[in-house]
Every structure is written in structure tokens, then in C-alpha cells.
């Protein structure tokens, strides 16, 4: 069986800063990492490989340096990697990204299962998994937290929803997006790192994929970002210090008084 895992390279969001003058995001000097939530998709694929005979390919669409994310996947044990990269792809929103990824998957052919992370920590939409499935005409199950069994082309899984867990069976081929509960991602191995270092990662570009320019990049993207800004924070806080016992007592009393008032207010 052939499995594809879609991984994205993202900026390390904890260190992202805003330039207060230009009101734009400062990307300079920000480290690029593999989307942390995609590590779970990789882990899920590797666990499936342990229970059946699978060949796993990691795919990433992005600039040339996204090969680093792919190499990380290979170091964890993924068999092959393909980079999907072309200047014409830049500026793609989730629609265009999914369209391009789906085209690449079709081109490579023969995948029975496509795994995605729950969402990418930069765009944070979680849309690419379901959109890619729609573009491929495949069913999708999102928020998968357990893969129970793969037998006779059917995947038995659970899915995390509001208030509990759904149990579902998916007839392959199909797409799933996974959440953290799927299992702690393993660390790269020494052998894996060596393999990643030597591996020649093929690139699929516009010419190879033969895509309509109207459907990719900025032209193919229905959405436009019109403004970015810092969220405002507006509240006035009554601060009490609790350095001594007396202060602590007074602070707690004031807090209880406030809670009581709030209670009265909304009752």
C-alpha cells in the first residue's frame, strides 16, 4: 500500500514579531520548522507501516528550502519525499494550495491513503486536508485520534468531535487529518538522518504538473488579505499584591467580594 503524508514548513510562530511601524510580520531571522502538528501525521503513517506493508511518501509544497521539512520526515523513517515548488505557486491561499497538492498526488499516482496534520500553525486553517480530498474526489475524515485497524481496504478509526468520539470506517482510498492523540511522534534516528542527507528529493514544478495559471498562485486564490493588525486588549485590572500574610488575606477577601458582586450582577 502507498501512503502520502502532506507536510508544511512553517515559521516558528513563537518567535514571530510585528513591525509596529510598517504593521507587517517580520519574517527575517525567524526559524523555519516542520509544522509541529504534521509530526503526528508522520507518526500515524509510520505506525501503519509497522502493521502492514506500506511505502510512505512525504509531500510538501513550498519554496526550495522546504526540502528541510521533507528531510526531517525522512529522518523519522519516511521512505520517499517529493517537493512541489515553483515561483508560480507562491501567493496561493488554501484553495490554490490544495489544488496544486491534489495535482501532484494525482501525478504521482497510486496512493490509497493521504494523511495531513490537523492544521498548520501559521495559516491555522485546517482547510487543506478536506480541500485536497474534494479536489481528488475522495472522502475525508478529520480530527482522527485513533486508527484501530486497517483490513481489506477499510480503515477503522475514531474521530474527536464536540462532546466525544465518533467511530467510523473509511473505505480507501481516502484522506484523513489527525490530532495529537494519534501518538507521540518518534525522534529522528541516526540511520534516518544519514538517509535524508543522501536522498535526492525530486521537484515537481509547474511545467511537470501542467496546471492552468488561472487556478494557482494569487490568480487562483479566491481570498485576499486586506489588512493585518495587532489585537487590542482593553480592560483595567485592579491589582493586589500578596507578599505578606496580611496582604494575601486582604487580596483574597477582595477577590471573594468581587466574585460575589459578579454573581449578583448576572443573577
Amino acid at each position: 500500500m502507498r501512503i502520502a503524508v502532506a507536510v508544511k514548513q512553517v515559521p516558528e510562530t513563537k518567535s514571530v514579531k510585528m513591525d509596529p511601524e510598517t504593521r507587517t510580520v517580520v519574517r527575517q531571522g525567524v526559524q523555519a520548522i516542520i509544522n509541529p502538528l504534521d509530526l503526528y501525521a508522520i507518526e500515524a503513517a509510520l505506525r501503519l507501516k509497522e502493521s502492514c506493508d506500506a511505502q510512505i511518501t512525504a509531500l510538501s509544497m513550498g519554496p526550495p528550502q522546504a526540502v528541510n521539512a521533507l528531510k526531517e520526515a525522512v529522518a523519522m523513517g519516511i521512505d520517499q519525499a517529493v517537493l512541489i515548488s515553483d515561483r508560480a505557486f507562491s501567493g496561493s491561499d488554501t484553495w490554490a494550495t490544495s489544488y496544486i497538492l491534489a495535482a501532484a498526488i494525482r501525478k504521482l499516482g497510486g496512493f490509497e491513503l493521504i494523511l495531513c496534520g490537523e492544521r498548520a500553525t501559521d495559516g491555522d486553517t485546517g482547510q487543506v486536508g478536506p480541500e485536497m480530498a474534494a479536489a481528488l474526489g475522495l472522502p475525508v475524515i478529520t480530527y482522527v485520534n485513533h486508527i484501530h485497524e486497517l483490513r481489506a481496504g477499510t480503515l477503522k478509526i475514531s474521530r474527536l468531535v464536540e462532546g466525544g468520539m465518533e467511530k467510523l470506517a473509511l473505505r480507501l482510498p481516502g484522506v484523513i487529518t489527525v490530532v495529537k492523540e494519534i501518538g507521540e511522534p518518534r525522534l529522528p534516528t541516526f540511520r534516518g538522518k544519514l538517509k535524508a542527507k543522501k536522498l535526492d528529493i525530486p521537484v515537481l514544478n509547474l511545467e511537470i504538473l501542467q496546471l492552468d495559471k488561472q487556478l494557482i498562485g494569487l490568480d487562483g486564490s479566491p481570498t485576499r488579505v486586506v489588512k493585518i493588525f495587532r489585537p487590542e486588549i482593553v480592560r483595567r485590572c485592579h491589582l493586589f499584591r500578596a507578599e505578606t500574610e496580611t496582604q494575601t488575606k486582604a487580596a483574597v477577601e477582595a477577590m471573594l467580594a468581587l466574585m460575589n458582586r459578579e454573581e449578583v450582577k448576572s443573577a
Partner: protein
Amino acid sequence: MKAIWITAEQEAGEIKPVAYELLTRGRALAKKSGRRLGAMVFGENISEAGLNELIARGADRVVAMEAPELKHFSVEPYSVCMLELIRKYEPEIILAAATSTGRTLMPYVAMTCHAGLTADCTELDIEAETGLLLQTRPAIGGNIMATIKCPEHRPQMATIRPKSTPESPQTAGRTGEIIRLEAPAAIKRTRVEYNGFEPDDEEISLQDAEKIVVVGRGIKTEANIKSARELADLLGAALGATREVVDRGWLNYSHQIGLSGKTVTPRLYVGIGVSGAIQHLAGMQTAECIIAINKDPDAQIFHIADFGIVGDLFEVLPVLIGKLKRGEKIC
């Protein structure tokens, strides 16, 4: 004139309340743009009272499609229904809740009809000059807000963060049209089989809780969570956590509040050893009253709190718990 539509989720034939939040959003947009508001419901044996309530709470027209295949959410049959509705009514805007259902169905449909979709919006507006939908959402890990629009493709689609707006109230005597449509035959084609549901009781209590006690990394060890739980019990509050706590395995993921966890809008939020990182604030800043205990006077959380105690939580908690135990009750 093309209308604004919301999708109302149902369970066992009853409309889920998150739909009423969408009606609040939808009414505001309808008013501003002079358009009508529709609501679509897919399910099996949907209660008539439920459909009427959608009208009482703001819909001008309700369209229901019913079939056994629609009893539980499944992306293939549901997308067939929504696409049929899009073909028939050509909506200008479609809003869905950013729930596990909305976040799956909307991208699937948006891809198929080449529509623009914005995820997890916290604010919506209509641009005065163009009448376009302005969709605002947190981006880059919640560090910034982005406003997005969709100039050419239709419908303009957005999922809306649950609990980011109040439910639309019922207005007595409000009238509207209820249409029951036959679901297209293509709903029969599905490659996913539903095999049951396992409820998680803890999960329910957090989202609906009126009061929430949240522990952050300041609590230091898993064992110390006990005292936070005690405080929560004394206050009749649910227990939430920051990602730092969940990542360390001290509480499970269903407790996580924030950008990558739950959004909550309780009447009372008490944060203990929580720094107030922007990603955490994204999930709780709409709480009515925010109280924080943190030893760092510069902690971010104090910027959004109504009341703060600057001190060591291990000194403050015992005093607080002691007083509550001695009957200085919160009614």
C-alpha cells in the same frame, strides 16, 4: 437579491444552539447589506419546532433536507446537499460554525465550487463601498489579526468561532418560510460508515461551564493540580488548562483553552499561574470577569484581567480554599 445563509447543525433532529450564534452574525450582516437571511439544515426527522425556532431567532427562510444518510454528519452526503442548495439559491454568503462539522464540510464544498473560505473568524462585517464580506480572524499563531475578503468568487464562505458571539434571542410573532426539500439521490454514495459515538463527559462541562478555573505552568507539578481542582469544586467551576500544562500531560487535551484548544466564554475565569500568552487569550478573552493569580507583576494576563493578585499561588491558594471551605460562600 441573493441571500445570506447559515448552516444549522442538528443532532437527533434537534437544532444545536451554536446555530443561534450564527443567526446573530447573519442578522447583523443582513441588516447592513439589506439582504435576507436563510438557514439550511441537513438531518433526519428534524423537529418542526426546531425549524420554527430558527425563524423566531432571525431566519427569513429555512430549508431542510432529510434522509437517513443525513442523520450523522458525513462529508460526502452533506456536501452533495449543500452544493445542491448553492446551485438552487446562489447564496451570496454562507456561514457555518467552526466546529468539527463546519470545519470539514465548508472546505470540501468551497473546493468543489471554487469559492473562497476563511476559517475560524471572530469578526464579520460588510464593506460599505463594495458590499463584500469582511472576515477577521487570528493569524500567525494568534499573534496578529487578519481581515480577509473574497472579491470575485461566490459564495463568500466563512466558518465562525463558536462562543465568539451571543445567541440570537427569540422574537415572538416573527414569520418566515419553511421549505422541506428532497435530498439529491447522490447522497447515497458514501464511503464512510458510521459505527457509533462515545461521549466524553468532561468535554461537555468545560464548554458550557459558567465558571472556569484554569491552571498554567505556574502550578509546577501534576500533583499540585489537585489544589486547583479543589478550588474549582468549591466554586462549582470546570477545570481548564493552558497548552503548557496539556503538553506536559498533567491534564488531557480536552481541557486546553486557547487558539489550538477550546474557546470559552464563561461568566468567571480564574487563571492560576497562567502567563496570558496571546494564543491562550484567543480562547478566553471574551470571559465576562477575569481573575488572575500570578507572581509576575508584568504577566500579560494582568492586561486583560479585571482583578489580579500578584503573589505566589502556593501562598494564595490555601488562603482562598480555606476561606471558601469555612463557608465564605459564593452563592
